[in-house]
């Protein structure tokens, strides 16, 4: 029996290695994951596995203080993931299934939160809803305590629901209306169709979005630092261990503890996806999608959406306003001096460097994500789930750990002692001022590994929807794997690719905690300048940086829409070819 299983795995690999392109892709992806993600992580976290740290585990898992912190982290993660997925679902549903006004506006407002410069959203929330908030205190006259679980869930859900929205919107658009029609013809009402047809078909997307948001929420550092109050989570604890206590051992132990819930949600998600068959893009002709007209449903959902849009507009409006006044909420006189500081002072070089490096990392992350998704969903090989999860580590681990890992591993050239070849320099020195490209390469790599997970999840969700028969047809018509991927798969998952490119760019532009350890005098990074300004309590300058950052990302989104095409472009015509 075991022999048979082994034989099957050998056969799987043999099949993959029959196609050199596929083999190279798999090898390349594995090397990427191993050298650039696992190695740096292991250099920090690996230490926690040594027996001398057993008492630390003992203490952290049994003492009530730490149990409480772990519980806080879980509660925050589940709550944020649930709220974000629900809101994302709501927005996607309104976009695809309802005929209501302002849809375009809602779409744009729902995209904006992916640009959340560190500390900006949290700070704006304090300005609006803090104890002395413009709204809580100014309009309602209460001293409301935003610090803690509620404020954190609000800030994180607002920043993260877009992931769920984009994934689910793409999936809903791809749903075959024929299924709805069939159900309706069989006598099912709209609600029943939604419950028994639409929802199950979207389950992989929901599971995938939930996983991503959960993993990101529990590893987020910026928001808990500003809005946490006395609500402590593992991410802040890890940060404090390293930065304040100079104690990497306990940080490593905490990081390992932090990975457990991520792993559990990952397994759960895989289980859900494997159990459901949700293929809806078959290449066969399909019907026309139908809107839902019931006025109660329509206007309730529309109202909800608009309320959330208003909140987003308020928060980002606050950021913009903050950049143009002396001190927001205290001295509201108009001024341009913050922009003068950013554009003519220290900021201009940082602006350039960050944009440049993000432009380099974006296509790499987007395509790599699609490629890994393709391998993971379509190909059978041993260690498939491990590859998937290892890629997710890029976001599941707090940036501080990744940054330090990079510094530990890549501050000297990476040399491997190989049999026969002797020592081989795998990578030159990547970090620090004297490194390749003044340390810029290390920053690009960190950008890539921080944004690949989102691309991967979007790709996985999109691919599970597409009937493998389309690709099989391509292969049996004589195309090889590379050609099939390029000509069939990639165009079919174009909405997912577009979403991942947008995310990759926005994420790169806003990454902070890992970057702190990698900036050099030659490469200044905007987020770190923002952090510097926040630390020096010059929020006006920080807001001005954020406004510019938002403008850059919006421009990039525009360019990507034009270049890669939106969901209303070619592939919809392809999907509805016989319409």
């Amino acid at each position: 029996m075991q022999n048979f299983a082994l034989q099957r795995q050998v056969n799987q690999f043999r099949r993959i290695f029959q196609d050199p392109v596929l083999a190279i892709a798999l090898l390349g992806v594995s090397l990427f994951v191993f050298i650039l993600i696992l190695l740096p992580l292991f250099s920090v976290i690996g230490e926690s596995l040594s027996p001398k740290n057993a008492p630390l585990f003992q203490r952290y898992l049994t003492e009530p203080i730490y149990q409480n912190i772990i519980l806080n982290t879980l509660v925050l993660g589940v709550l944020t993931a649930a709220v974000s997925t629900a809101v994302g679902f709501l927005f996607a549903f309104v976009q695809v299934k309802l005929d209501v006004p302002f849809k375009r506006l809602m779409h744009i407002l729902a995209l904006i939160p992916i640009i959340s410069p560190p500390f900006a959203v949290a700070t704006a929330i304090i300005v609006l809803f803090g104890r002395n908030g413009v709204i809580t205190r100014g309009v309602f006259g209460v001293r409301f305590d935003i610090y803690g679980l509620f404020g954190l869930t609000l800030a994180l859900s607002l920043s993260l629901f877009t992931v769920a929205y984009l994934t689910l919107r793409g999936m809903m658009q791809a749903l075959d209306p024929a299924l709805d029609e069939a159900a309706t013809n069989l006598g099912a009402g709209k609600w029943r169709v939604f419950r028994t047809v639409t929802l199950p078909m979207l389950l992989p997307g929901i599971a995938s979005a939930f996983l991503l948001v959960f993993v990101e929420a529990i590893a987020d550092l910026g928001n808990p630092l500003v809005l946490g109050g006395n609500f402590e989570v593992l991410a802040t604890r890890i940060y404090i261990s390293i930065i304040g206590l100079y104690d990497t051992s306990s940080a490593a132990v905490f990081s390992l503890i932090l990975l457990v819930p991520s792993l559990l949600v990952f397994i759960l998600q895989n289980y859900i996806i494997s159990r459901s068959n949700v293929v809806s893009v078959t290449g066969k002709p399909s019907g026309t999608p139908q809107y839902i007209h019931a006025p109660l449903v329509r206007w309730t959902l529309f109202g909800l959406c608009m309320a959330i849009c208003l909140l987003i507009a308020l928060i980002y409006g606050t950021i913009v306003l903050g950049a143009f006044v002396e001190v927001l909420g205290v001295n509201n006189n108009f001024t341009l001096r913050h922009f003068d500081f950013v554009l003519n002072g220290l900021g201009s070089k940082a602006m350039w460097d960050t944009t440049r490096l993000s432009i380099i990392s974006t296509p790499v992350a987007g395509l790599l994500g699609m490629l890994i998704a393709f391998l993971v969903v379509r190909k059978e090989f041993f260690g498939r789930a491990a590859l998937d999860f290892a890629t997710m580590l890029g976001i599941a681990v707090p940036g501080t750990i990744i940054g330090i890992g990079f510094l530990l591993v890549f501050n000297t050239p990476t040399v491997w002692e190989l049999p026969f070849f002797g020592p081989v320099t795998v990578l030159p020195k990547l970090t620090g001022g004297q490194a390749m490209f003044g340390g810029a390469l290390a920053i690009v790599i960190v950008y890539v590994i921080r944004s690949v997970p989102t691309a991967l999840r979007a790709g996985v969700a999109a691919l599970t929807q597409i009937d493998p028969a389309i690709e099989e047809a391509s292969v049996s018509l004589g195309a090889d794997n590379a050609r099939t991927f390029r000509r069939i798969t990639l165009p079919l998952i174009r909405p997912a690719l577009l979403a991942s490119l947008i995310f990759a760019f926005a994420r790169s532009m806003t990454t902070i905690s890992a970057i702190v350890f990698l900036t050099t005098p030659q490469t200044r990074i905007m987020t770190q300048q923002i952090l510097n300004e926040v630390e020096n309590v010059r929020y006006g300058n920080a807001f001005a940086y954020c406004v510019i950052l938002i403008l850059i990302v919006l421009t990039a989104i525009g360019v990507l829409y034009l270049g890669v095409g939106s969901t209303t472009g070619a592939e919809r015509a392809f999907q509805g070819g016989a319409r």
Partner: protein
Amino acid sequence: MRKFYLSALAVCVVLLGVTAAALAQQKTLTVLCTPQEDWCVAMTQAFEAETGIKTSYVRLSSGEALARIRASKDAPEFSVWWGGPVDAFIAANEEGLLEPYQSPNAAALPDQYKDANGVWAGVYVGALGFCSNVNVLNELGVEPPTSWADLLDPRLKGNVAMAHPATSGTAFTTFWTIVTLEADKLEAAEAGKGYDADGMPTAAAVDKAFEYFAQLHQNVLQYTRSGAAPGTLAGRGEIGVAIIFSHDCTKLQVEGFKDVLTTTFPAEGTGYEIGGMALIKNAPEMEAAKLWFDWALTAKTQEIGPMVNSLQLPTNPDAAVSELSVKLAELTVVNYNFQAAGKSRNAIVERFEREIAPRPTN
């Protein structure tokens, strides 16, 4: 679509090329700079203009700076570390990360502002104070605090903020100030009770300090990450009193919170920080770094800070003092022992994390 990918690829290649070309640099002195960024810029530009040595900096908070020096100790990125509380320098020295240097210019400094072995030298001094929002305090019916005991007033519940001693030198200075005050009290009652033979405050004094912070915890809204952040909370009216360095409060007033904030000092004595400077062990460009070290201690260099609104006091007695600065000589300051503070830091911070921060407030 294919065209787009091709042009995107071309853009990437060009960008990488541009970056690479820009970085084919000559040798430069790299400074690890911890104070406010404007000051870093002003300092590096002045040094470059005066010596002709190309100088650049990276700005990091002191905890991040130490973590980064440690992680890159096999191939140091920085040659000199300028600014930030000396506690971090003492901790770095204990790990063998610093290179001692007896600068000829250090002779001008009073003894308490430099290390006897030349490991670090002070470049500025700042004093702790209470930065209060007058409006909030009026509403609560509380006068701006003038003693450490005033902060324990139950009417200030949820209206005090300080930074977290683990992430902020400011907050640790606050803590050690209380330790010193308690040790003085114990010592006054009975010789040998407050300080041991080596001049270290006794365990009893530290316990007393923890008792104080456990009480204060009931009034604290949040332990912020950065030392100056509580000042903004006070400026915004989120809280009534912030425990921060007084020059940070003055800076806030200059930056737009003029009529809202007021600075007071504890009558029983306040703590102060020394901004340190040290050379990094095994670092490149050591000669240039030493030149910087000498230069940074001169009176003229120390007058750069006030020009960019950094109002800490100079350590060189010949340097002119800005009129906005708090004068150390006019304040009651505690007898702050930096060596002892540095030695006790880890234990105290860990205990603070264990015993104080996680406590529920009621």
